[in-house]
């Protein structure tokens, strides 16, 4: 129960393609996070799965049933909205029981299910309150509770934490993760926040312009981004992208600013090198793979982000120990850990090791 497949699913508004030929297989009980910049179509995709948005081409299949044209309620999915969308004129109990009431369950059955869900979410003391009497976090929990009581085969979350303040967001994130473990239900979660994606997902799907750029575990996406877009989208602070060329000796030439051994065996000709700030370190000018002058430093407590300017390579972000000694204007060397590098070809695709 809870296996969701998209087969060449597409969404067109007039001549504008929001989602094109999208294939996605979501296993029962999996926590999939769909992430991407605003306008990438991620919310549309979620709403297509929910049945709130018509799918104009392809199929959506849930547990073997083609639900492409089915009403939302027939898909047995529940959704948690960004604005929570609680019914303002109903109490928490009525909010949670509304779907069951429409499904014509008996009053007693509704009561039992709502009580059980409220217990799970620690909402029991709030059951007789109205949404306007609740805090943001409590409303969020009611929205989740409303989803739980219907015992759906899958949960859909549409940026559920974006209206909460930073501290509460972390708490709710943990709570959603816990909920997933205890319910074991399929969850599809849309967000633009890659931290939420990294922390919650079994699998991340990165979307751009209605297409899947890459999908995989957070670890896969972080360590082996399939393309420049994913490389820069996943990870905070962002990955540094440096122009490079392969020279006759099979080494990487950093635009004449330094040389580096190829990190992998490949015949391809990479043109860009991706290095995460934590894979770079600051050394004495004569020891680095390349050098530059310190332009700015941002003290972050645990570490310091040092921004080094190189005339050819641009601004390079290096994650350094908090108490690093280099001052602004000083010339420094940058050491590159070439085992952890990513290389990209002219089309922006990752260069992978030849077999």
């Amino acid at each position, binding site marked *: 129960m809870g296996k969701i497949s998209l087969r060449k699913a597409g969404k067109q508004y007039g001549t504008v393609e929001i989602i094109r030929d999208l294939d996605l297989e979501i296993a029962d009980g999996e926590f999939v996070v769909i992430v991407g910049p605003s306008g990438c179509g991620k919310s549309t995709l979620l709403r297509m799965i929910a*049945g709130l948005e018509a799918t104009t081409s392809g199929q959506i299949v849930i547990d073997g049933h083609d639900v492409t044209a089915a009403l939302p*309620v027939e898909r047995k999915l529940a959704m948690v909205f960004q604005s929570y969308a609680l*019914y303002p004129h109903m109490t928490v109990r009525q909010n949670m029981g509304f779907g069951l009431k*429409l499904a014509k369950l008996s009053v007693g059955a509704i009561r039992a299910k709502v009580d059980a869900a409220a217990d799970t979410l620690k909402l029991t003391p709030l059951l007789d309150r109205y949404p306007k009497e609740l805090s943001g976090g409590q409303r969020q929990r009611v929205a989740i509770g*409303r989803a739980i009581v219907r015992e759906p085969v899958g949960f859909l979350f549409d940026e559920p934490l974006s209206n909460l303040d930073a501290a509460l967001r972390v708490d709710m994130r943990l709570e959603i993760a816990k909920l997933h473990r205890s319910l074991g239900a399929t969850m599809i979660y849309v967000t633009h926040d890659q931290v939420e994606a990294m922390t919650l997902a079994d699998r991340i799907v990165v979307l751009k312009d209605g297409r899947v750029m890459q999908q995989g575990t957070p670890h896969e996406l972080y360590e082996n981004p399939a393309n420049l877009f994913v490389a820069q989208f996943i990870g905070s602070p962002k990955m540094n992208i440096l122009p490079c060329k392969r020279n006759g000796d099979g080494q990487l030439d950093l635009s004449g600013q330094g040389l580096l051994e190829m990190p992998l065996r490949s015949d391809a000709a990479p043109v860009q090198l991706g290095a995460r700030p934590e894979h770079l370190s600051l050394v004495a000018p004569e020891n680095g793979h390349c050098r530059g002058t310190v332009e700015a430093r941002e003290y972050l407590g645990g570490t310091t982000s040092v921004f080094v300017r190189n005339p050819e390579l641009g601004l390079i972000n290096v994650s350094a120990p908090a108490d690093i000694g280099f001052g602004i204007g000083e010339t420094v060397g940058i050491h590159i850990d070439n085992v952890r590098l990513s290389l990209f070809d002219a089309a922006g695709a990752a260069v992978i090791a030849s077999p």
Partner: protein
Amino acid sequence: MINALRWLVFAIAALAMNFPILVTLVTSFKSARELSTNPGLWVQAPTLDNYLAVFQVSDRLNIFLYLLNSITVALIGTTLAVALALPAAYAIARGRLGERTLLPFIVNLRAVPLIIFAIPLYMMFQWLALLDTRLGLGLILSIVNLPLALVILVNAIRDLPGELDEAALMDGANRRQILLRVIAPVCRPAIVTSLIFGFITAWNEFLFGLMLTTSKAVPITVGASFFFAASGGGVQWGVASAVMVVGALPPVLLGLIMYRQISGSMTAGAVKG
């Protein structure tokens, strides 16, 4: 200093604009004898005789009937307008249905001289035997009330987040259920406002009352003018004033109680319509 000037201007404006109401109120407490000597703004010997006279039913004048007619036609005209406008407003606001056809047409209806429809409606009502009936007048008043009710309700529904509907869709509600169980309760303030506004408009309507009724269904606005028809010794100004006070009181009271809502919706109806 400037504030004193403001108060002065306010007093003059309020007096000028409310002058006929004030004069009528004062006159309604004057005896016939006093009226002939003192047309001024002061009552020397206040009396309730005029009001007693107004509520004397005669073959020619029956104020109870006029009031009952006005209440009935205003209620029909108001509830029917809202009952028709609410589902349509929902379809317009959420289904994007008739946004460029139905909505502008009905909004324009507010600005069209109503006399255009009065004559064919008169003939139609003659065929349907609806002339001089409360139902007939009520039906027409609902057309008068439709534009503003629709604009108020469309705006109210547009102001609600679409996710509310979608949450209900996920909960398994169909559009009718969403309208009745989610949208209507949430829009209650807007519904109440359109009801109040419609009631005042319908109560104050004159043209259709004049054309479509003759005796049985005459509303108070038309009935009041009957008191001006000279019966022997000219118009009895005291009695006529009392009638107007009685006829104006219900909408004025409603308006005073609800003036905040009304002022808000007047602006909405004007600016967004």
